[in-house]
């Protein structure tokens, strides 16, 4: 997983609210058994419109996506994060996300920045013509026009994103605690082990 520290570039001023994962990547694209190549299916329904932002040459390769409230709601499909990643998106900026989506984003090296709607409105304006700068270390989003928005992020997520850390290796460090829990479960609640039918 590629670490993220600073991301600078054009931001797609998308802004739509309640964008569900079916919109990010339609169900027909879920039938893959690998993680690559999903960018082609990203926002497919919206891209049927020839004037869509995603195929606008102005935003080709833009690493940032600005979205509305409750981004990534709906189905838990992680393909949504893979599709955004495959599209080249490293940062999403929105007022809120579905819990599942923001978790999936972080696990796939995409930074979900939360900013209030007023900040989003301003960034949408800037993004139409100019680049945006996101700095995870200082937790700020800045524009070439002296705008400066600070965002909060869970420190653990921040550490994982900054270091490009894979969660499984981190968890494996807790082996002793996991084994202790399993042992306790086997003695205190033996019925938790499924019966043999």
């Amino acid at each position, binding site marked *: 997983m590629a670490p993220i520290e600073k991301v600078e570039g054009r931001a797609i001023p998308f802004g739509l609210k309640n964008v569900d994962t079916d919109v990010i990547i339609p169900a027909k694209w879920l039938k893959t058994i690998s993680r690559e190549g999903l960018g082609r299916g990203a926002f497919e329904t919206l891209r049927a419109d020839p004037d869509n932002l995603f195929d606008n040459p102005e935003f080709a390769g833009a690493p940032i996506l600005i979205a509305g409230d409750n981004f990534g709601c709906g189905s838990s499909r992680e393909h949504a994060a893979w599709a955004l990643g495959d599209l080249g998106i490293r940062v999403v900026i929105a007022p809120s996300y579905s819990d599942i989506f923001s978790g999936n984003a972080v696990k796939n090296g995409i930074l979900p920045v939360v900013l209030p709607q007023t900040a989003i409105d301003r960034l949408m304006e800037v993004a139409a013509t100019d680049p945006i700068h996101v700095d995870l270390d200082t937790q700020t989003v800045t524009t070439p026009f002296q705008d400066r928005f600070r965002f909060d992020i869970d420190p*653990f997520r921040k550490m994982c994103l900054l270091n490009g850390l894979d969660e499984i290796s981190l968890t494996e460090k807790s082996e002793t605690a996991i084994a202790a829990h399993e042992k306790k479960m086997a003695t205190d609640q033996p019925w938790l082990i499924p*019966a043999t039918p």
Partner: protein
Amino acid sequence: MTRPRTLYEKIWDAHVVEQRPDGTCLIFIDRHLVHEVTSPQAFAGLRASGRTVRRPDLTLAVPDHNLPTTPRKDAAGQRLPIADAESAAQLAALETNAPAFGIRYIDAVAPEQGIVHVVGPEQGFSLPGTTIVCGDSHTACHGGIGALAFGIGTSEVEHVLATQTLLLQPAKTMEVRVEGEVGPGVTAKDIILHITGVIGAAGGTGHVIEYTGSAIRALSVEGRLTVSNMAIEGGARAGLIAPDDVTFAYLKGRPYAPKGADWDAAVAYWTSLATDLGATYDKTVVIDAADIAPSVTWGTSPEDVVPITGTVPAPDSFADPSKQAAAAKSLAYMGLEPGTRMQDVAIENIFIGSCTNSRIEDLRAAAAVLKGRHKAAGVKWAIVVPGSGLVKAQAEAEGLDRIFTDAGLEWREPGCSACLGMNPDKVPAGERCASTSNRNFVGRQGPGSRTHLVSPAMAAAAAVTGRLTDVRELID
């Protein structure tokens, strides 16, 4: 004496393996359900890193999402191949991965095969007080028996396979209390649609919702699974309903449920899980059951709910400007005009199925409306898809399949079917479907499909009249 705790807090506390300084907890997962769509990349990840499945005994795999619901064996009993190459590849991957990693596997033609969220409780694999995960957002369903259950993405599937744990932040708690008695024709589905309309699609974000109150306690386990199933449509990570005697009676004797002395110990423990007197929730919403009518959605968000006696709302009837814009978009997609009576909306397709409404009680409710009746001429496609092979067998033993086929509906093999556009069961573009599933998103039932979420009885009523119909007019 310890601080009074909610059901959620008790289950959470019992599963904390380790707490990080920032409050994040490593949570032990008691049950992991695996299906063919969100698992191939997880198994590939394990292979790539040389990892194994830590607790195959706590893992159960079953294919459901993209299996066709047409017959799976030919006349000679030979298994039929799946025409769609990608679906076939996903199924083949699960068939290889499950035995390779030592996981229990219910195959596509086993009598117990079905939708993962129907199979879990039905097999007694899902139990109260456990933590349950699955790579499908409607895992919240298992909250109906009092399990803390939630959907996860594929990276998390890999994480659980490898470590049997997940890193989670504790959720806030929300109580949705439904007091009183519901009227005739009002089912668990109407209760949860109504709740979603009241709290909104993001109303439960960051929370785990516990459904309480006399109207919830009066529900069967099937009904409770329906309610909890759609917790996610209200934005919540999970739903919960306190396990009680109804739950225990449902689970007793199921294949993987505890037996003998273990059963008694389990029941004693499960009984202790109910929210303590004096425990507080971060948020409480109280709903009067008498206010709930048979309900239907008009838009493309599950919060777009009106009573069947209602009309399509005008976008400017909403206070929030962004909701106004969303409503206008929804109406354009749905091909609906504000002010239209919901009961005047013609329906061409009927889908009775999905993990929300494909259990035996759902099929009985639909059959009760369809008995001695026939689908309307305008209804082109109407299918009934049982949630599992066992539900199918039970329905056939009760003669429900005959009621459906006599009424002109198709009786299918178990699976997710038209709940999502992943298998051959799709709603054609521009056409409407009265659907018992859980999502009315744009394109959910196939590109351009227009979904109206309803209860099984309401879907049956729509089949009879060819339009959205108040089921109370067809029952007495």
